[in-house]
């Protein structure tokens, strides 16, 4: 199977380039398996990966123009030559490894932790199955970055627009019946950029390897703001 892979080593290369590789594809192989084969052909080829089963979020890459997790992308689904690039819009460190610090900065900016003001009970804080169900489709995010790095609004304003990942997380806490900081969270999201730069292009929804829906989460935040302002 033919691959064209983005290469750039700042120690050696003035410019990035695409390099062709041939991989012996077998039934059931994932893109990560192919990247590992390429690494045995050229150990200088760098990419992040770890769990191999789509839960750690390390190996997000851009393949044939779409952001995907390499370890759960079957080769059978890909057209040849398979063009593998780093996430768009992020500074490249080396080969497929990009600098994700702005992405994590936006995550931290939404105060991604449960805020509780009442004294804590001796037991668990009670939560009904229905209240808990509101967190499904939100808490499963693995911070891979496939969504935010496929979002045009985030490409243009990664310093000011929180991006789909961070906003999904913001809604995860707003939606949690145990959280007691909704007002502060909503106030923090005011202004033209942090939340409102989302133009519902929905690239994030298509890109999410965990089938989550950041666009809907963003809509829910906007609705809640509206309700609060009335």
């Amino acid at each position, binding site marked *: 199977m033919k691959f064209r892979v983005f290469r750039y*080593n*700042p*120690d*050696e290369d003035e410019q990035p380039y695409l390099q062709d590789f041939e991989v012996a594809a077998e039934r*059931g192989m994932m893109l990560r398996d192919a990247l590992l084969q390429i*690494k*045995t052909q050229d*150990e*200088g080829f*760098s*990419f*992040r*990966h*770890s*769990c*191999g*089963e*789509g*839960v*750690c*979020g*390390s190996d997000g890459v851009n393949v044939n123009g779409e952001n995907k997790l390499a370890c*759960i992308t*079957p080769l059978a689904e890909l057209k040849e030559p398979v063009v593998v690039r780093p996430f768009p819009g992020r500074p490249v*460190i*080396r*080969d497929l*490894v990009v600098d*994700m610090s702005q992405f*994590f900065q936006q995550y*931290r900016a939404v*105060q*991604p*932790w*449960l805020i*509780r003001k009442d004294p*804590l009970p*001796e*037991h*668990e*804080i*009670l*939560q*009904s*199955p229905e*209240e*808990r169900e509101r*967190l499904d489709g939100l*808490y*499963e995010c*693995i*911070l891979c970055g496939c969504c935010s790095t496929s979002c045009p609004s985030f490409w243009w304003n990664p310093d000011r627009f929180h991006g789909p990942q961070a906003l999904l997380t913001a809604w995860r806490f707003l939606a*949690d019946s*145990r959280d007691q900081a909704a007002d502060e969270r909503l106030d923090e999201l005011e202004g033209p950029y942090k939340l409102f730069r989302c133009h519902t292009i929905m690239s994030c929804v298509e890109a999410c390897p965990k089938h989550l829906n950041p666009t809907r989460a963003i809509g829910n935040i906007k609705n809640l703001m509206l309700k609060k302002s009335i």
Partner: protein
Amino acid sequence: MALAKRHFDALIIGAGGAGLNAALQLANADARVAVVSKVFPTRSHTVAAQGGVNAALANVVPDSWHWHMFDTVKGSDYLGDQDAIEFMCREAIPTVYELEHNGVPFSRLDNGRIYQRAFGGQSQNFGGEQASRTCAAADRTGHAILHTLYQQNLRARTHFFDEYFAIELISDDEGAVLGALVMEIETGEPLLIEAKVTLLATGGCGQVFRTNSNAHINTGDGMAMALRAGVPLQDMEFFQFHPTGIHGKGMLISEAVRGEGGYLVNKDGERFMPRYAPHAKDLASRDVVSRAIVTEVKAGRGCGPRGDHVLLKADHLGEEVVAKRLPGIRESAIIFAGTDPAREPIPVYPTAHYVMGGIPTDRFGRVVIPARHGPEEAVPGLYAAGECACVSVHGANRLGGNSLLDILVFGRAAGLDIIGYLDANPNHRPLNSASVDAAMARFQRFEQPGEGIPVAELREEFQKVMEDHAGVYRTEAVMAEGVEKLKAIRERLDAVRLTDRSRVFNTARIEAFELANMIDVGMGIALSASQRKESRGAHSRPDYPERDDKNWLKHSLYFRDGDQLDYKPVRTRPLSVDSFPPKARTY
């Protein structure tokens, strides 16, 4: 250029559940704490834990920490230390409540309490009916816990060194640990982190075996650093093979499938576990189920064209249970096995999963080694917690749901004990330049130019030797041959050369360090296993099929220096209750 240095009260190496729970206690107590992790913290392998965390909350059926303790002692095949096990089972309850208060999105029961499911090896009333003790967030419990702990550490302003690889511990002539030399992966530059206390929380070493359920990063780095600092590894012969890895791939299908009512069948469609464990059946202890599967396959009752696996049935549970309780497993099975468990059975076979052994510690997380006076003494300034440590609460076999519990309880306990240690030791000890020089030499060890053995080639050979010679069934001859092969591989490590010697994000260089670590740890596994002449828990010897309490109710200690083995007694006295004496172990 002068070596860059940073100073902290506490240095934590590893950002999984143990490291982050320790860091959280320390940061909440206003200690200056640095967490070094070779991957971004939420990529740590705690994220992959599926089923849940055990605690006798009694939310579903009556339960008590004492029953939990009995199950854990029995599950350990009586090799676990009963003081530590009592401590863990008692602490389980407040630990889970604390996690919930921190935000973990546990699944819920109708009355609003935390959902608990049945898991293997659990009983009510000291061996009676099945218990429901495993607190779960669907089948993504580890993910939910790891993300929550990371989030709380962000709130508490823990200092993170993301994508820094630990090279070597720094210690002084008295053996006190002074911090570690680490490498920033992005730049390839060394950094010396001096700390009053260092906690190793680097997780497991499943990558030593070819077919395993572990992440690429589980290479036993902390264990190997401890070995090189003169600390032995305890009970390394006890390596858990999880019964239900996806056949041919190794990734895990959680015990939660059987906890929710799934069961195993052979090629005749026979549900075979009742023959091996009449009472607990498919929810017998993991070592029992793994051996049963291997026995079925060896007896010619395996499934598939090669008869090399069995099937895990969950289709009778119905679409709704599978979708609600096992969504992540369903997704994995569809992607990797091409089967939807709600419709057809999953092909499974045992996969290398978890190391019961590790760096010896007491129940406060202090690393303890044999000393001149008495059987053990704490190493000043060194703690360990999580899978890299051996407290020992799992003994010869770990129960499902006790791993998340171990990392959380002992990560927390270590964090709390370190606060006291810092009060008693408020100053940094003087730096030892000889130790720094030795660590710097190690840092440069893969920089020699020239032709040599590629890392990937030697790693592949090593993993195959471990699988063939230290796997599920172990005989004298097979293991002796394995030890010799490992010694040869260890020597060839010196001939490893990198073709890529650039500094920036050089993953080949990281993998070379990891391979060196794995070989040290693998030797510990193989040598400890070859010397233990009995079958106990996960350590199964066809040539010594019985447990031998008279000669072998003791912990092994492997020292890297001279490949020496030593032994120490099992702590059979609990803290407040009567001891559980060894009994025949049936399920």
